[in-house]
């Protein structure tokens, strides 16, 4: 496939509902089971080692009417929670073996309970991911939490999830993360190599494919993109921040780029590319995964890191990307992102870094006001 065909294939996958994406994967892997992964992070390797396909559960992206979920969740709740619940209430997720939520925010926590009550036959897991990365007890706790996940899933499936199979999955996901990072590096170094919207479509589509297939696709894409002749584009070089959980519509990213911004780095689908280095394969794979979670220097708004504050993480990201500004794109009503925005903003103003905030939600279908805002923002920097 050409780059254009790969991107088109990925965009097509994103147009599907999770169950349809699972159905699509079954064309290549006829007996594969699906396991929903609500953002931000879950140990995908354990799910994959269990013979299941981890499927990113990022809501329904405005593709379904919210007939029931609106009565369960109030108007001030983010759209990903509502449309995810709607998928379960519509029984769209019946083909899935289970779903995992984690301690990212108060809404996600309550959502896990509500899904459990309204989808009685479904296996619903909830992970409490550590918020204290530096206690003497953190490593043992995190390992035990991932081990609990393995044991519960194994009991549910009635089959073992061996260390060997987890190691094989680690190897595969290491490769996926390595290739994803290589594409990000390429985009950072050569602005025109691949548009942010295209890379975003590919990375998010990766949450709807078996990692075996996704690694091949990424390899192909990387080779083609790296040999492309790139003509640098003029624009305001920015970092996109705030979309670590609910994912913005592709149209929003396209508009930000079309309005004059070159997105050099972002936190889109960050939970699926949380580890910047390979997770070691020798020894205890569950322990290695736990250590990787604790030591990862990739900041997110849903993990407290005493020694590496998010504000400094953003400053490092800006410097590393060679960006000159930040576009905040938090999901509407996303409490972690909106609270973090305050500290980010104060830090950026201290360092005289321009920034712009554009909130999004699933039902967003017109981007004209965003286009005007971003154009003005980009022009103000270009002609400063």
């Amino acid at each position: 496939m050409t780059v254009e065909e790969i991107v088109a294939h990925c965009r097509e996958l994103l147009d599907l509902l999770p169950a349809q994406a699972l159905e699509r994967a079954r064309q290549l892997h006829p007996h594969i089971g699906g396991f929903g992964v609500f953002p931000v992070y879950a140990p995908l390797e354990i799910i994959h080692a269990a013979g299941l396909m981890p499927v990113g559960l990022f809501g329904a992206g405005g593709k379904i009417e919210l007939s029931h979920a609106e009565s369960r969740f109030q108007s001030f709740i983010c759209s990903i929670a509502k449309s995810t619940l709607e998928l379960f209430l519509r029984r769209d997720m019946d083909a899935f073996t289970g779903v995992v939520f984690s301690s990212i925010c108060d809404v996600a926590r309550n959502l896990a309970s509500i899904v459990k009550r309204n989808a009685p036959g479904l296996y619903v897991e909830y992970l409490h991911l550590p918020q204290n990365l530096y206690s003497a007890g953190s490593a043992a706790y995190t390992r035990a939490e991932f081990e609990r996940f393995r044991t519960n899933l194994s009991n549910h499936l009635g089959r073992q999830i061996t260390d060997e199979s987890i190691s094989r999955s680690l190897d595969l996901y290491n490769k996926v993360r390595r290739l994803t990072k290589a594409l990000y590096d390429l985009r950072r170094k050569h602005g025109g190599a691949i548009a942010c919207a295209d890379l975003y479509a590919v990375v998010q589509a990766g949450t709807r494919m078996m990692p075996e297939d996704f690694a091949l696709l990424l390899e192909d894409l990387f080779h083609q993109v790296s040999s492309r002749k790139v003509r640098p584009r003029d624009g305001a070089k920015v970092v996109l921040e705030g979309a670590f959980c609910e994912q913005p519509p592709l149209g929003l990213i396209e508009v930000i780029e079309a309005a004059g911004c070159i997105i050099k780095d972002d936190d889109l689908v960050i939970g699926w590319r949380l580890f910047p280095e390979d997770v070691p394969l020798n020894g205890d794979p569950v322990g290695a995964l736990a250590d990787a979670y604790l030591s990862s220097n990739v900041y997110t708004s849903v993990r407290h890191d005493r020694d590496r504050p998010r504000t400094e993480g953003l400053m490092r990201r800006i410097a590393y990307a060679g960006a000159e500004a930040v576009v905040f794109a938090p999901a509407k009503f996303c409490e972690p992102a909106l609270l973090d925005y305050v500290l980010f903003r104060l830090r950026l103003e201290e360092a005289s870094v321009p920034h712009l905030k554009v909130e999004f939600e699933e039902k967003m279908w017109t981007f004209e006001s965003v286009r005007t805002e971003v154009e003005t923002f980009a022009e103000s920097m270009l002609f400063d």
Partner: protein
Amino acid sequence: MPTPAPLTRDFRGTVHGLSRDIMTGWLTRLKEATSNGALSAYIMISGNCVEILRCFDILPVFPEINALQLAIRKNSLPYIIKSEEIGYASDNCAYVKADVGYTLCGGVGAGGNMPKPTMIVCNFVGCNVYIKWFEHCSNMFKVPMVMLDIPFSREQSPSKEDIRYVITQLQELITACENLTGKKFDIDRLRSILRESARAERGWTRCKHLCKNRPAPFDAYFDSINMMGPINALRGTREAADFFDAAVAEYERMVADGIGVLDEERFRIVIEGPPPYPAYRSFRNLFETWRAVAVQSTYSTVGGTWEFGFQHDPDRPLESIAEQMILHNLCNRTMLQRYQQIRSYIEDWSADALVIHSIKSCRLFSAGQGDMREHFTKDLGVPTLMVESDLEDPRYYAEAQMKNRIDAFFEALQYKRIRKEKSDAQKAGS
């Protein structure tokens, strides 16, 4: 059906007075600490470990109590707006915004009413906003933050790894307190503090259970605020335990004499969710008009669900503190466990209805309360009313709309009761 005449009764009885006295004493110490250099620590209410701070004579400061006091005195809005000016969103928790705004306006530190904390203890017990709030405080004050990450309730009981993780962090907190104060940790002192905690918890439990009587001696939603300060902020002191002994004596006397909190108890309700502090009195009036008494409430259990039997154990000091933080408070329990708790309140406290007060600020409480309403009305047949406003931001409280909804609910409840009485009388007569 006309709305009954409003009550004009003054509820500031003995227990209210005692509570006001000891809470005023604590607030006075906070004020004094702004200038006398006393060591203080920020900590949150839910599932807290105030006993450890007390063991080192570190004054506990609760930003949540600061926020609610601003709201109940109708002072919160200017501080909320101050925070919004620096970037907080209208959708952010207004407790955070009021507290931060208050700090920015000089309410904390020299010249203010609250001391600048010497340390920040982030007891992450359920509420994710706690972490953000304290990250912001840590940033404002340039004060170190000690994180206590409490694993959320996700199995029938906490695992030994959960307990060990929390105990390890408590030991690290103790080390941090030793370093801060220069004092050596004295486990016997902690045991004696926990003895007072347990005495207060027994009193709390007894008071809550007295509301099973008809009439209930106090309103377990609106009057619980008098007991929540002592049990959550002053727990571990002799004065708090004595306060509960006095409260028990007062409420037992009322029960023995058949005296209720209202002149007549027509409806017994359970209320879920925090109150609208900016409109506390008028919200209360809307229920009292109908002679509706809250015989139980979930909000009163954010610090601890003691009425179900848990008490701190001086013989297992750190273990029991860990268990309290993980398991025995509302905030660290799932929505489904909360449904169980409410169901027990409805059945064991003989309630007629459930009222859900959904607040925008606190998604821990409110996210998904529509499902709760669905469960209680459709699965359990419990008449349920859901109303919306906020616990801190007065802009979200619409008095007329609130009154309409509450009046309509109780009218329907009353009508249903009359019909049932008629039908029962007809059956008895035939």
